């Protein structure tokens, strides 16, 4: 089942067509890879989907709902969480506070009460609410094996743990789809192996994962299906084995042989 679909989405920056009529779709419950050479428009496409930026043309359908023009904070409330290519943690906050921020809209989303009433309620019930959020956040930290670091400032964490914390924060909002933007960038092989393990555990939770990655070993190992972008256009999609032998993909990555 397709949980998310883009219908010929384009994004033009001045004269540059960063994303060109891309039909991308995400299969529910699977790990979907999105690969392509540098500048292929992968992150741009991510930004369109998560509402950080809006497409010039085309539509994005999530769970049967058109989310093309929704602001980022509304999209994330619908169940799309993401991480960033360059880590974006709340550096001056502790590890557990970062995860608590991921839980922000999980409380006070009682549909029978107005936003204002909820805000007032969470103002006066701060102590109780904090304890609830704290224990929930701690569960997530335990899931990611970060619990011993909970009182450390996010900026003091080693690089690999910062990546994991960002994923933990995204997962705390219990999303339907998790977008990971180059999670293995800059990681050493053992950190990458741990990341692979984390992604497989997230998949076991039933969360759909969309993964941008350059590390082909990781992509080929964890992804169930892969979409390849090159110069803003979709050039191939299929299972890892199909992608490996696709002549267009090989050409995009390695160039064409002179005849």
């Amino acid at each position, binding site marked *: 089942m397709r949980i998310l679909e883009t219908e010929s989405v384009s994004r033009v920056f001045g004269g540059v067509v960063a994303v060109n009529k891309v039909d991308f779709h995400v299969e529910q419950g699977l790990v979907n890879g999105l690969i392509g050479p540098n500048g292929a428009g992968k992150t741009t496409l991510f930004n369109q989907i*998560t*509402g*950080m930026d809006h497409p010039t043309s085309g539509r994005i359908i999530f769970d049967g709902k058109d989310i093309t023009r929704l*602001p*980022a*904070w*509304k999209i*994330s*409330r619908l169940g799309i*969480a*993401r991480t*960033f290519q360059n880590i*974006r*943690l*709340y*550096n*001056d*906050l502790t590890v*557990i*506070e970062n995860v*608590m*921020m*991921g839980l*922000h*809209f999980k*409380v*006070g989303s009682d549909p029978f009460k107005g936003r204002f009433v909820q*805000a007032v309620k*969470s*103002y*006066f019930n*701060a*102590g109780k*609410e*904090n*304890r609830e*959020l*704290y*224990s929930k956040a*701690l569960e997530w930290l335990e899931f990611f094996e970060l619990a011993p670091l909970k009182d450390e400032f996010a900026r003091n964490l080693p690089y690999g743990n910062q990546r994991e914390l960002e994923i933990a*924060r*995204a997962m705390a*909002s219990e999303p339907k789809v998790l977008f990971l933007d180059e999670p293995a960038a800059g990681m050493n092989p053992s950190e990458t192996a741990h990341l692979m393990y984390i992604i497989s555990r997230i998949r076991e939770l039933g969360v759909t994962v969309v993964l941008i990655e350059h590390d082909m070993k990781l992509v080929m190992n964890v992804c169930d299906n892969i979409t390849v972008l090159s110069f803003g256009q979709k050039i191939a999609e299929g299972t890892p084995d199909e992608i490996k032998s696709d002549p267009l993909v090989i050409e995009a990555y390695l160039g064409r042989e002179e005849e």
Partner: protein
Amino acid sequence: MLNFFQLIIIYAGIYALMAIGQNCITGNTGMLSLCHAGFFCIGSYSTAIICKVVGLPFWFSLPVAAIVSGFVGFLIGVPTLRLKGDYLCIATLGLGEIIKNIATNVNPVGMMAVPRAELFGYQFSSRNKFTFILLVWFFVLIAYLLFRQLAHSRLGRAMTAVREDEVAAQANGINVTKYKIGAFILGAAVGGTAGCFATAYTLTVQPGSYTFMVSVMVLCMVVLGGMGNLAGVILGAFIIEFISYFPQLVGLSSVIPAQASQIIYGLVLVIMMICRPQGILGRDRYRYGDGRKTRRSAAVKKEA
């Protein structure tokens, strides 16, 4: 001499209110704004107009000043909060000056002989400074408790998220614009109430006194005490007020010109930025869950 210390404590209280407001905007939400003098001006005029022209008691003017300043904060906030950093600073600086200039043009001579604040028949006058200290610091305490609760709630954390990283905050489902405007309204409202007490104390309003320097002074207090730390900004208000009255305090006001204090603020800021950029007290650290529980269980054990 005692009289003079009391005066400093009163002004420190009034400025502490302003600094608490500025802290909500700059310390918690990370918006560099320089128009607190404008909110101070609006608060002062609200009290003067309500007490003198309309003839209602001082207590009525407090909520009105807060609401009017909050509304002006909203009007200033909506167009300017798309700006960031230096640009926001310049835009709010300009708007603060506009408020001052409107006041100067509409009412160039200011207002005198505003009726005194009264409580159960007791008149708060500048002659009995001690009761006035109680009055002002009672409200500082209330503002402190209210804003501390805010900072430790989910709403305050969302503001902190906006300060730390707007993009990540959006990705966490935080409506950044709403929180920025909300912080601006709250900060402005407290700034307005500070104006009320200033009028209640001096019983005059002078449009020329709400200059850009007042905004800078308030910002200094926040930076000096520790951005995002309420106890810190109150301490900052004390220190800055003490510096500004220092020449008179040591009887050297004829030797040291009044402007010298501005040089000292500048120096203090430069030294702080080099040696301790997080302010005297640094950021407020609130321990969630664990810390509280252990403290509580320790208390329970003691009882047992």
